């Protein structure tokens, strides 16, 4: 009998040796090749595990060569450390194009060139007469208004030049774009083509004709249109080779005007080139008001004229310096990981290259610098320079005819002029995009300065998608609402300038509005950039609203979130009117305690979770008031996950308040303990040691008020007992409090005797608390349960020398030495480390109000996946704490949602095998100590648990993960997290609403061999289930304090008792999985190893039977009897035992 080895994840993993496989097991060719090359130097790591390096003395102390010394010196000067240098080199190798591929691309480019110049010409027609266009192709431009003067004819390009990063060698994989500029012959263009989109219409027609002819060529795998930099007036033609190279390269064709065709002075940002009369189809206003300038339109025309000069500039500056090119490549990776370079108005790789050129020309970067130094310098520059206020220019000439920087600041939000002094390279970049870049640069600089060990990983290898980077996210959907918003905001000149692109036109005013409204609650507001569409040549170009939705990300300031008040100016001040106008009907006059009468806005929020969602109220109010975007179009994603940690009956709070009440009660109790009179020794410390007391209990306790009719009273011990004929009573978990007593010579020096003395103290404590404070108490040998205000505390008396007494071993010579024993370690953990951890995390909660929510959501999820028993509470709390203490490359989460997503990311990507998770509580560990911990970890890896979490109090042993999880269970968690993360992110980023958010919390049940279904009647926490039942049983609680003051039923949870029995009886045959929060099913997984027939052994007959197999007597598990035992042991609790017989063969 044994499980069929079908490819179940968990089933298959159980039998494997105790080594965890990395989440991304790669057997790449490159890796193999490289490792075989270097085998002589370093032993290849066995099974993906880092081994401590062993070098022979001769090798360590041999005479250094000149070359080696140079290399070491270079590393020291140019890079941060040798590891960083190697990492950077590896990364560059990964993103750079290989020579072989370059050759293939060059060949393709030559083909393209030949074909483009051979496209036949067409005779001249009116621009509006497009009948000559063949049927299979549509003009890639919205021709609104359609009527425009001028003629068009097609002639093959006068010149075909490759421009952009491909020539410079700074383009990075995976998507290689080669930009090709096609210079249109002068005959096509006429005077005044710069006016009223005429140039753009001709450009589009030019491409349409080209597309039609190239599409028929078998050389191309796909021919489609896209926009240049997302600018919808400037289509470009994308060509991809046919066959296996289709994904290798995309050639983009950009038509451009012949040099010196446009007069630059006509295209200054103050000039108008789109006439209102033409654009709006009405005669110019009679009052003779000047035409509004069209800076963006002008820039787009100018961009086409400057393609070649930019290339020349870049190649002269970057041409020979490999370090600079490396730097640009690194910067591109940096931008891409932060999703800053994509979409319309992104901070593109071209901009970064120009920025590097600027820094070289201002001598901030030297050409001999390494890629890492270039990256650092550029980030430093970005972090400290605000281009929205102080623009920069590459132009060196002091020609008085050139416009001033101030003119550009007037027209654009971000200013970075090119060498001509007329073209703003950052014209499309919005202020919030730039601020986001700046913010990221600042974060990265602090990360680099902190000398963190894995800085490279965090800086360049960790993606920062919007949903994981921002606390709250909101989607505006459908986008067509923004058109109305533009009209409401009176943005007609901007629309005219943007050629009708209402999304771009509205973006700036919209973000400014929200930034102003959110004020102190906001750290950063970012918006998604509309993606650049691609479409087939036979289709019409996509409309502005087709880009789906506009997503805004809010990074919140936790300290600003606590206030429900928006304080305005005093009523008689002139600013009051402005304030009233801004906030509309929400603004009201209020009299404050200091006697001032002010304008103010008050938001409704009672609980912490509601206060966190005030930005939602602000956003919907302001959008409805100022831009006519109704609430139904604003999909605010800030709290959908809150539902999972909300209490049973309150839907308004996520439990922070209830936890605070319990903590408050504990504070009272500790004061009582301190002041207790009559104890033989005084109390030296009272410390909490329960998840409630560090705000991480998933469901906070509620005061217990038992209904006496529901219980069997046991008057002589003043306790209540559960009754057989009633459903299981409510689950009450006592909160552990450790109470240290002062040391004294009177304590005995013998472990057994200390136990008895402690028991005497427990009894005395109960007596005194009852006498002096009238509290209901119950003492046992190890603890005293105290009922206070409906909360039950479990006080454990501790004597600080007891672990030491347990450790003492006397050697034969009479020398006393200390050796760790299981009992001493256990005691030390419970009475010393646990209280320390609890107080440290309690402190963390005061610093970061979102910690509680994140830790509880994380714990909830792990438990909902039925894995809660394998991970201690403390280990999960510490993982959650790591998200706050080491948030890089993010900032500490301010909402449970983003914290939970990062928890999933951390769990799914962390390499537990080779790294300890260092949680630097209270910042006690220095950088040197952390390095020491890491090297100690590597040396002792095999003796340590699979999951190692290091804290300042626990630097070596990882006490909270000592007893589990096993490698297989951890691997299962990693797999589940890796599946849950993209699913949840997709749900949250769906502009139509997240749908059923509980999907990722439902465990997969098909992997289990046996399912034991439990009766809800005896599950005390049935209502806490992920899918909360519509109806459950009465648990014997009153809503008002009742007359009964007997001790309620404590810690009575039949499923847990049942599981304990099951694990004891069948622990070596099977694993049991259960969700303690109201799970109705226990999953059982047979262990394949114990299903191998074994020879008879007296010590391992547990639950097995002897069978003759092939003439030999072997032992196999007695599965049928065991399945019936499941029902017997859980009589009354178990509903059915479902064996999935196909999983194990008889």
């Amino acid at each position, binding site marked *: 009998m044994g499980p069929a080895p079908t490819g179940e994840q968990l089933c298959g993993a159980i039998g494997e040796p105790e080594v965890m496989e990395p989440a991304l097991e790669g057997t790449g060719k490159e890796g193999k090749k490289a490792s075989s090359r270097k085998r002589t130097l370093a032993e290849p790591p066995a099974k993906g595990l880092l081994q401590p390096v062993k070098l022979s003395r001769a090798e360590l102390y041999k005479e250094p060569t000149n070359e080696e010394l140079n290399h070491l010196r270079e590393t020291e000067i140019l890079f941060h450390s040798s*590891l960083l240098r190697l990492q950077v080199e590896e990364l560059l190798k990964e993103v750079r194009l290989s020579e072989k591929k370059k050759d293939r691309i060059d060949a393709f480019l030559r083909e393209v060139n030949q074909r483009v110049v051979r496209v036949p010409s067409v005779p001249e027609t009116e621009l509006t007469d497009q009948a000559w266009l063949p049927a299979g192709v549509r003009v890639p431009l919205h021709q609104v208004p359609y009527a425009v003067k001028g003629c068009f004819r097609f002639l093959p390009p006068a010149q075909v030049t490759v421009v952009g990063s491909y020539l410079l060698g700074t383009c990075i994989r995976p998507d290689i774009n080669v930009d090709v500029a096609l210079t249109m012959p002068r005959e096509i263009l006429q005077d005044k083509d710069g006016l009223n989109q005429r140039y753009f219409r001709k450009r589009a027609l030019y491409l349409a004709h080209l597309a039609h002819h190239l599409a028929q060529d078998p050389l191309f795998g796909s021919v489609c249109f896209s926009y240049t930099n997302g600018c919808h007036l400037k289509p470009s033609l994308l060509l991809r080779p046919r066959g296996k190279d289709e994904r290798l390269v995309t050639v983009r064709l950009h038509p451009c005007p012949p040099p010196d065709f446009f007069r630059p002075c006509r295209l200054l940002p103050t000039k108008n080139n789109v006439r209102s009369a033409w654009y709006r189809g009405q005669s110019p206003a009679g009052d003779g008001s000047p035409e509004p300038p069209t800076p963006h339109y002008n820039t787009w025309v100018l961009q086409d004229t400057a393609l070649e000069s930019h290339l020349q500039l870049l190649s002269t500056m970057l041409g020979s310096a490999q370090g600079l090119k490396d730097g640009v490549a690194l910067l591109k990776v940096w931008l891409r990981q932060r999703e800053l370079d994509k979409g319309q108005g992104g901070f593109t790789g071209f901009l970064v290259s120009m920025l590097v050129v600027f820094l070289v020309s201002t001598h901030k970067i030297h050409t001999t610098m390494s890629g890492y130094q270039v990256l650092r310098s550029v980030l430093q520059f970005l972090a400290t320079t605000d281009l929205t206020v102080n623009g920069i220019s590459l132009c060196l000439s002091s020609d008085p005819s050139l416009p001033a920087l101030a003119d550009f600041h007037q027209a654009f939000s971000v200013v970075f002029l090119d060498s001509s002094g007329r073209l703003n390279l950052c014209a499309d970049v919005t202020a919030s995009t730039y601020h986001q870049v700046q913010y990221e640069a600042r974060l990265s600089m602090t990360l680099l300065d902190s000398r963190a060990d894995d800085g490279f990983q965090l800086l360049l290898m960790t993606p920062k998608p919007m949903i994981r980077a921002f606390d709250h996210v909101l989607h505006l959907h459908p986008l067509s609402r923004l058109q109305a918003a533009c009209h409401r905001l009176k943005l007609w000149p901007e629309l005219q300038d943007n050629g009708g692109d209402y999304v771009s036109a509205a973006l700036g005013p919209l973000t400014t509005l929200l930034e102003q409204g959110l004020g102190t609650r906001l750290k950063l507001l970012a918006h998604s950039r509309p993606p650049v569409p691609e479409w087939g040549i036979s289709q019409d170009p996509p409309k502005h609203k087709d880009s789906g939705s506009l997503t805004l990300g809010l990074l919140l300031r936790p300290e600003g979130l606590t206030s429900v008040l928006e304080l305005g100016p005093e009523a008689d001040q002139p600013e009051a009117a402005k304030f009233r106008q801004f906030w509309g009907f929400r603004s009201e006059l209020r009299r404050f305690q200091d006697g001032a009468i002010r304008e103010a806005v008050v938001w409704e929020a009672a609980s912490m979770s509601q206060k966190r969602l005030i930005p939602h109220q602000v956003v919907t109010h302001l959008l409805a008031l100022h831009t006519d975007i109704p609430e139904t179009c604003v999909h605010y994603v800030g709290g959908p996950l809150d539902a999972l940690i909300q209490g049973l009956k309150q839907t308004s709070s996520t439990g922070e308040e209830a936890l605070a009440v319990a903590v408050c009660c504990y504070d009272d109790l500790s004061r009582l303990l301190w002041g207790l009179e009559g104890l033989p020794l005084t109390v030296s410390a009272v410390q909490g040691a329960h998840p409630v007391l560090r705000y991480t209990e998933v469901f906070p306790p509620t005061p217990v008020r038992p209904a006496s009719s529901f219980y069997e009273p046991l008057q002589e011990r003043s306790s209540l007992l559960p009754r057989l004929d009633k459903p299981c009573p409510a689950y009450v978990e006592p909160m552990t409090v450790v109470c240290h007593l002062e040391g004294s010579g009177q304590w*005995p020096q013998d472990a057994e005797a200390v136990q008895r003395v402690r*028991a005497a103290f427990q009894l005395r404590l109960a007596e005194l608390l009852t006498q002096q404070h009238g509290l209901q108490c119950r003492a046992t040998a190890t603890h005293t349960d105290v009922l206070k205000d409906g909360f039950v505390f479990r006080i454990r008396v501790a004597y600080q020398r007891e672990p030491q007494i347990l450790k003492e071993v006397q050697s034969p010579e009479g020398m006393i*030495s200390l050796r760790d024993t299981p009992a001493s370690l256990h005691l030390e953990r419970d009475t010393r480390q646990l209280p320390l951890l609890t107080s440290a995390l309690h402190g963390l909660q005061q610093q970061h109000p979102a910690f509680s929510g994140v830790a509880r959501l994380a714990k909830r999820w792990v438990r909902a996946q039925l894995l809660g028993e394998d991970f201690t509470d403390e280990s999960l709390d510490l993982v959650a704490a790591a998200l706050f203490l080491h948030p890089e490359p993010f900032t500490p989460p301010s909402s449970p949602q983003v914290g939970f997503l990062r928890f999933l990311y951390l769990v799914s990507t962390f390499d537990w095998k080779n790294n300890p998770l260092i949680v630097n509580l209270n910042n006690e560990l220095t950088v040197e100590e952390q390095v020491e911990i890491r090297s100690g970890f590597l040396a002792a890896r095999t003796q340590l648990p699979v999951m190692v979490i290091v804290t300042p109090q626990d630097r070596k042993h990882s006490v909270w993960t000592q007893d589990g999880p096993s490698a297989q269970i951890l691997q299962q968690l990693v797999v589940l997290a890796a599946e849950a993360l993209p699913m949840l992110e997709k749900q949250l980023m769906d502009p139509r609403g997240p749908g059923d958010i509980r999907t990722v919390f439902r465990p997969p049940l098909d992997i289990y061999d046996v399912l034991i279904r439990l009766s809800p009647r005896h599950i005390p926490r049935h209502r806490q289930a992920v899918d909360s039942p519509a109806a459950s049983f009465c648990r014997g609680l009153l809503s008002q304090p009742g007359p009964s003051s007997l001790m309620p039923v404590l810690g009575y949870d039949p499923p847990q008792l049942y599981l304990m029995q099951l694990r*004891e009886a069948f622990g070596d045959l099977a694993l049991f999985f259960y969700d303690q929060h109201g799970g109705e099913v226990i999953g059982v997984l047979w262990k394949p190893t114990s299903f191998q027939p074994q020879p*008879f052994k007296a010590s391992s007959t547990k639950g097995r039977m002897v*069978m003759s197999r092939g003439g030999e007597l072997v032992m196999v598990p007695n599965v049928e*009897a065991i399945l019936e035992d499941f029902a*017997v042991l859980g009589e009354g609790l178990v509903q059915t035992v479902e064996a999935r017989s196909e999983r194990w063969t008889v």
Partner: protein
Amino acid sequence: ARRRKSAARGPEDCIPSPPGYAAIPIKFSEKQQASHYLYVRAHGVRQGTKSTWPQKRTLFVLNVPPYCTEESLSRLLSSCGLVQSVELQEKPDLAESPKESRSKFFHPKPVPGFQVAYVVFQKPSGVSAALALKGPLLVSTESHPVKSGIHKWISDYADSVPDPEALRVEVDTFMEAYDQKIAEEEAKAKEEEGVPDEEGWVKVTRRGRRPVLPRTEAASLRVLERERRKRARKELLNFYAWQHRESKMEHLAQLRKKFEEDKQRIELLRAQRKFRPY
């Protein structure tokens, strides 16, 4: 399917059992279909090994299911002869478990799993009768129900509610005995003080408020450490030319070691494809 057939054949057929053992089917109650098997054997040990269990009268039982208590086992086997005692243990153990009654306050009973039992009969005939037992034995019957599931948990909970008075009495008696023991030891030590042993050595102990350095490992390590530091202070560093040279070489060796380590790390990351940025 073969399993089912063998069960259906009933206890008349010979149930496979390991050599030297007899198999007795055992079920919780009549309702159950399949049964577990007790593997029983007369308790015997090799020559020379000591065992506290009486030879010949003791039955050694393997694979006792978790719901089977000492009382029910005694009742089930009483048909073979008068049972003197039943002892359930987690593992086979030759020595009788310590007979002293362990305090139920300080050593609560563990949750039972599958156990082994030593059943001592009054007469040796009981053992042979038990070896021939056919079964199936029923642990829980109408006349002698055994609690399981909810029933058991509720009664366990009721039992676990402590009686403070009993606890107090137990603690007091223990501490009295302990104090007495300590006092006796002290008296004995005092008596021995100054009295030479057979080789003529005299043990001297200092008593008083300020004890001498305790004889512990930690204390001796502390002393050694202090010595080492004292010596280190006297040493000159980077004074002689050879010291200079050596420290430079040491630095270089450190760098080399670090470089090797880093290379190994990179190797590993590359194998895991950790350099694919996206």
